[in-house]
């Protein structure tokens, strides 16, 4: 049966997971892995952007850890990431719950509401920074400060006071990203069977108790995913911050991604910049592991 052999081969090929994973794996290996390994390799050198000879050394790392600014930028990054995540989760949850309730009550105009909130999400990060910078400008085209000044007599230093600047950056990031959380949590809410709530009502549970004991546990998987993704993107944020504050004032919004940029492109320190990049990866990894651990704890507890 000569016709079956190629068919057989084809069928057997499809049995191997390799066949299915290969295209994706190829992309990841070819386009991402080589540069990634190169960065890791470079972090163990003192290479300069200008080239020339470089030596393998741990000096880039030792300098990195001796520099007090590293700790500061770690702090800034974590505050920024965690602040963004907490706010996005809270606001997203509120919006999702509200949306859910509104839809169930048959309120009109929810599509428009959803779309308006989602509109901010599609804007490239760089442009979000540009827009907010324009808006908050203390120059004459900054409307917001003009109104504030007319009402209260002083303008708010959104971008020129160190702690305020970080808050502003977090707010801009939340503004941009809350739609994602909202939509994911909203989807998760739809999955929860109505019978659970009905049973709880019959048992006499109030709204808050229902939330705590039904909604949240059922949403844990979704919340977990949202947390991981938001943290990764928060820790890696670069374009929004560079457009909004450029790392200032007085390095108060200098997140680690910005340090990478500064070391590699401004100071031409490829080795040092790569070390910071590896640090960035390590933070991402660390936070994800924490979440995984928490998830396991949660599973074990249930």
């Amino acid at each position: 049966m000569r016709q079956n052999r190629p068919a057989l081969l084809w069928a057997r090929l499809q049995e191997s997971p390799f066949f299915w994973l290969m295209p994706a794996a190829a992309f990841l290996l070819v386009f991402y892995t080589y540069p990634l390994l190169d960065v890791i390799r470079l972090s163990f050198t003192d290479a300069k952007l200008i080239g020339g000879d470089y030596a393998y050394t741990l000096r880039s790392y030792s300098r990195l850890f001796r520099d007090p600014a590293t700790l500061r930028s770690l702090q800034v990054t974590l505050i920024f990431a965690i602040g963004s995540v907490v706010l996005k989760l809270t606001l997203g949850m509120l919006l999702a719950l509200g949306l859910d309730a509104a839809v169930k009550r048959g309120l009109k105009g929810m599509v428009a509401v959803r779309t308006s909130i989602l509109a901010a999400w599609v804007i490239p990060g760089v442009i979000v920074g540009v827009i907010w910078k324009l808006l908050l400008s203390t120059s004459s085209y900054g409307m917001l400060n003009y109104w504030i000044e007319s009402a209260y007599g002083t303008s708010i230093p959104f971008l020129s006071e160190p702690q305020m600047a970080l808050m502003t950056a977090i707010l801009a990031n939340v503004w941009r990203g809350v739609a994602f959380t909202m939509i994911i949590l909203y989807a998760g809410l739809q999955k929860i069977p109505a019978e659970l709530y009905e049973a709880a009502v019959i048992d006499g549970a109030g709204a808050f108790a229902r939330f705590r004991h039904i909604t949240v546990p059922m949403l844990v998987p979704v919340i977990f995913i949202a947390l991981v993704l938001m943290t990764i993107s928060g820790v890696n944020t670069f374009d929004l911050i560079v457009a909004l504050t450029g790392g200032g004032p007085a390095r108060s919004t200098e997140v680690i991604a910005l340090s990478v940029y500064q070391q590699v492109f401004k100071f031409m320190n490829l080795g040092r910049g790569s070390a910071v990049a590896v640090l960035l990866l390590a933070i991402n990894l660390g936070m994800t592991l924490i979440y995984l651990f928490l998830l396991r704890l949660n599973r074990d507890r249930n």
Partner: protein
Amino acid sequence: MTEATTYVGRRSTRLAGNFGLYAGFAVAVALSLFPIVAVLMLSMKQRHEVFAWPPAFLPEAFNLSTYVYVLTQTPLSRMLWNSFYLTAWTVVGCLLVSAPAAYAFSRMRFPGHRTILLILLVYQMISSLVIAIPLYRYFEMLGLLDSHLGVILVYITVEIPFTVWLLKGFFDAIPVSLDEAARIDGASRLQVLRLVILPLAKPGLAAAMIFNVISAWSQFIVPFILLQRTELLPISIGVLNFAPGQTEGEVTIPYLAAASIMAMLPAIIMFIILQRFIVQALTGGAVKG
């Protein structure tokens, strides 16, 4: 009075609740849209209006001359097209590559599949900034520098982890019994994927498509590193040409505003058209952990 569900209460509490919800949403919508509207107003101002003191929120006239200028006298319209082009190919390529992988994770048990999923997560963590310079050198070696092809290939790679994970979630929700039924009828795995799973996972595909579009549209670092010629740049980079840093003393704030609006508008419009699908997708399909 016994109630069937928790959502129907007495009429007055219901009205109060409705009012509260509307009020809350009004605030949320206002906050979401205010920056965009403010920039829109700014984009319609003439130069002298920009610096008028006291500043006015509304422009003197709703003129579109800045848009006309920005679209006809600058490379911006070309850049809009580039963004479309790059995004479209990325979506197609990414789905083509991710769907089979998601199938494997969903339908096949192989050793280390959990680990590989985690490794996928690690790739998700890589920010393009981190690999920027090695990527530049590497692509130069590969001859892919300053080309749309190179950019699309990187975009696809960036999207793969999330897309695979998302599609896996949707595929998982489709009962394996359907697969088995088709296999008994003599279908190959590929046919099962094509004829059984994908049609049922349409919401998932739509969701993946939308996430990919938003991500590709917003990409900044990758095209900035890999592209040089003006005619190839996407709009996320083109906007910066109007920013105060690049204009060497000129005042181009209205143009910057107009360019920013142009950069957002196509994505928003497409979003409005497709937003039914995305919500339906996420609620109809499964978003599992």
